[in-house]
């Protein structure tokens, strides 16, 4: 598959803004998506571990982690839509080919994810107040975790396949006969997959620090539970961090020969350093964890670390597709469309920012309030601004729409 062929697979419509915007958005949103996936996997694992424990702290943690997993699955799915969208915009030749060649698995992804998610909700529904009751239907949670791992593996394989355009024609027509069944997974990298999956342990470890701080804010009286969370978070961060670094090293060592120099370049070192900082940071904070808002900062540091890891992942794609195969996503034809570009950024930054800030603020404050929660005047105003912005959005939709449709 030469460079001209890859370029011929691009959509002739071009892209409605500079491709670098889509590249940046793809990396950022993927980082948030994979972080949510890590929280989902980590909280699911802790939930099932705690569900079988006789210790009260573990059982209480299981209760909290089931609720976390339930929300995390929704967040992971909804945020995952964005990188899925942006990758198709500038990497369409690669994404579509890889998907079609494993089409059966792409379709299976949908149904496996549905089964896994329903299983998670079944476990949740069957284990209301798990802290004080014997665990019911643990197999549902195990099915959910297995399902999430399988769909993760499918996504992983689809991504790896995009990096091997030289193999595509042979995969599509082995021995010169087209195999249109899409039933095969053609390529995967166990170290890469293992790295991204087992990152769940350090990530959930760091997440526990945020959870601990939240409980402190709500006036938690069980100091033993807070200590338990701190110890567990530290242990998960340390052990999970070491395992992740080993897997990262193995992944880098196994890179194809034509990009093997990447393994000793800046990006793997930056990713490893970011991970080390993220897991060491709460330990370094020491007693400051209990002061002010410091307790939440490990989550922020970990988010930055995930963005660095996501950037490294993108760099692997870049050196492979541009460095080896000559495909430059940044020279995609631009068919600039100012209206839709502007509308997105206004919606994202102004409308979305206002409303999400409002909803999360009241959710957070309500969670830390005994009894009925009444927001402050400033928070109320934020909500009112959100409603007004939504009405303005709808008004511009019909304004531009009717004018365009009937002028």
């Amino acid at each position: 598959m030469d460079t001209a062929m890859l370029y011929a697979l691009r959509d002739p419509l071009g892209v409605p803004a500079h491709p670098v915007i889509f590249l940046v958005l793809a990396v950022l949103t993927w980082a948030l998506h994979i972080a949510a996936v890590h929280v989902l996997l980590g909280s699911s694992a802790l939930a099932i571990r705690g569900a079988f424990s006789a210790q009260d702290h573990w059982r209480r943690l299981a209760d909290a982690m089931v609720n976390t997993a339930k929300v995390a699955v929704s967040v992971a799915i909804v945020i995952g839509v964005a990188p899925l969208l942006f990758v198709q915009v500038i990497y369409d030749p690669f994404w579509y080919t890889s998907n079609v060649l494993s089409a059966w698995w792409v379709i299976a992804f949908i149904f496996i994810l549905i089964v896994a998610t329903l299983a998670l909700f079944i476990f949740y529904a069957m284990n209301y107040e798990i802290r004080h009751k014997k665990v019911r239907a643990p197999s549902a949670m195990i099915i959910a975790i297995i399902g999430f791992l399988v769909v993760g593996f499918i996504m992983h394989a689809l991504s790896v396949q995009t990096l091997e355009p030289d193999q595509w024609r042979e995969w599509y027509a082995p021995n010169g006969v087209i195999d249109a069944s899409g039933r095969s997974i053609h390529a995967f990298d166990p170290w890469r997959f293992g790295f991204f999956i087992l990152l769940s342990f350090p990530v959930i470890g760091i997440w526990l620090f945020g959870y601990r701080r939240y409980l402190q804010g709500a006036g938690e009286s069980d100091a033993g539970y807070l200590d338990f969370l701190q110890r567990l978070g530290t242990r998960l961060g340390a052990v999970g961090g070491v395992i992740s670094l080993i897997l990262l090293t193995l992944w880098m060592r196994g890179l194809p020969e034509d990009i093997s120099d990447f393994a000793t370049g800046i990006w793997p070192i930056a990713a490893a350093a970011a991970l080390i900082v993220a897991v060491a940071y709460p330990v370094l904070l020491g007693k400051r964890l209990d002061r002010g808002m410091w307790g939440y900062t490990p989550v922020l540091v970990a988010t930055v670390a995930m963005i660095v890891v996501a950037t490294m992942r993108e760099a692997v794609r870049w050196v492979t597709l541009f460095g080896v195969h000559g495909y430059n996503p940044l020279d995609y034809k631009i068919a600039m469309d100012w209206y839709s570009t502007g509308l997105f950024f206004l919606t994202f930054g102004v409308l979305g920012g206002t409303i999400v800030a409002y909803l999360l603020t009241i959710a957070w404050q309500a969670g830390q309030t005994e009894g009925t929660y009444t927001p402050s005047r400033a928070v109320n105003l934020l909500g009112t601004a959100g409603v007004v912005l939504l009405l303005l959005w709808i008004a511009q939709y019909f304004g531009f729409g009717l004018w365009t449709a009937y002028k």
Partner: protein
Amino acid sequence: MDLIGLFPTWYEPLIGSGWVIGLIATIHVLFSHTAVGAAILFAVLAYIGVRDDRPELIDFIKKYGLFLLVFSYILGSITGPGIWYSTTVGSPRGISALIHNFVWKWATEWVFFVIEVIGVYMMVYMAGKLDRRTYMKVAIIFGLTSYTTMLAIVGILSFMMMPGRPEQWFAEGGYLYGFYGPNTFAQLAIRTAFMFTMTAVVGGIVAAGLKDAAFKQWLLRRLAIVGGLSAIVGMSLYPWYLGTLPGIAHLVMENRLPDYFTPSILIVLGAMLAYFALTFIRPKIVTATLAGFATLAILVLGLWPGETVRESVRKPYIAGQYLYSNQVIGHDVPGMGVKSEIPALQKAGFTQAHIFWPESQREITRENAPEVGRSLALTACSNCHSLSDTGIRPLKNYFPKQADIEGIKTYLLGALSTGNTMYMPQIPLKEAEAEALAVYIASLNDPDAVSRYRAESQTAQLDHRSDEEDK
């Protein structure tokens, strides 16, 4: 050599890739429309609950919300990208056309999704925790946001049929002319109406389980009114929608839809109205099973035919009236700098222009003709015609059992290659390609056709001279 950016083909022999897409899309429509409708219903109920100090309404929202959280938001949010996935593998250039035209609209819709998901959790888990005014404000945000997701998607769905303003879009391109047109608003009106119908039916599943008999009756009667009225409004909007369709769509409807289609749709509507009338008069009889059955009936008898029609009437195009269902760009779009690929195919043929064509099949011989024919059928036909006995519009059914290779080839070259078959894309074939495809098609009805073809020495035209002459 002009290369054409065709991707590999995925072919599902049992039901066909088209039906896989249709199945997932139909399920998603049920989930998503219900979600949007329910969100608006929540907003209204929360308003009444706060205004009239009726805590049982808030309790209902909480109960329905949990059901809705799983039924609509979880399954809806999976089957939504699921449509992307299924169209990616079934029609990669079709989804690419939509993505590259409307990426920002989808990204904007994504912002609303994020708000919606936070909103539904808050509606369910913050009921009773937030003061009533704040809860009402969250409900209003949730309701408005849900509806904006429909506003964002409907123009994209409309573009699948045709650009909003076709002439302007073809000439000037741009998002606005692609997204907005009379069809966009007609479709929006109909979808909005049926959204409430579906909400009323699905809402019955939860309402059936309410313990408070008086409240159950109050709610079911209102759901019946909303459902019945919206069904009537939706159907009365249908002529407006039809009036916005292009001429080719009317031709397809007149000639291709089965005779039973219109009566069956009317029967479905009648049955729905009867259901709502019954639940209005005798709300007590509504059980979760009955409401579940009604939901299933809407899915199978209402949504599936509706989505099938929408799929059928845009043929031979898959998007924007320029991209054929077999993934070939059939028309220039000067406004977007898009060139038709028909001339390149006329010049070089699929075997030379298709990037993924197997090297061993680029040269067509009598020996490999059946295999080349199969590759051509996969590439040019299988999006709309199953190559097996089952699935969507089996190819073999469109040719008489006794049709010989020469006859089929004559049709392929005379009518199909020149674009003179109604509802079908123009599929330019080189003579050798037409012969190869004819051999394959003949073999679908007559397995011995291949061996007879190979045994013949004179009749077939397949040799390189014919190819050279074409050039």
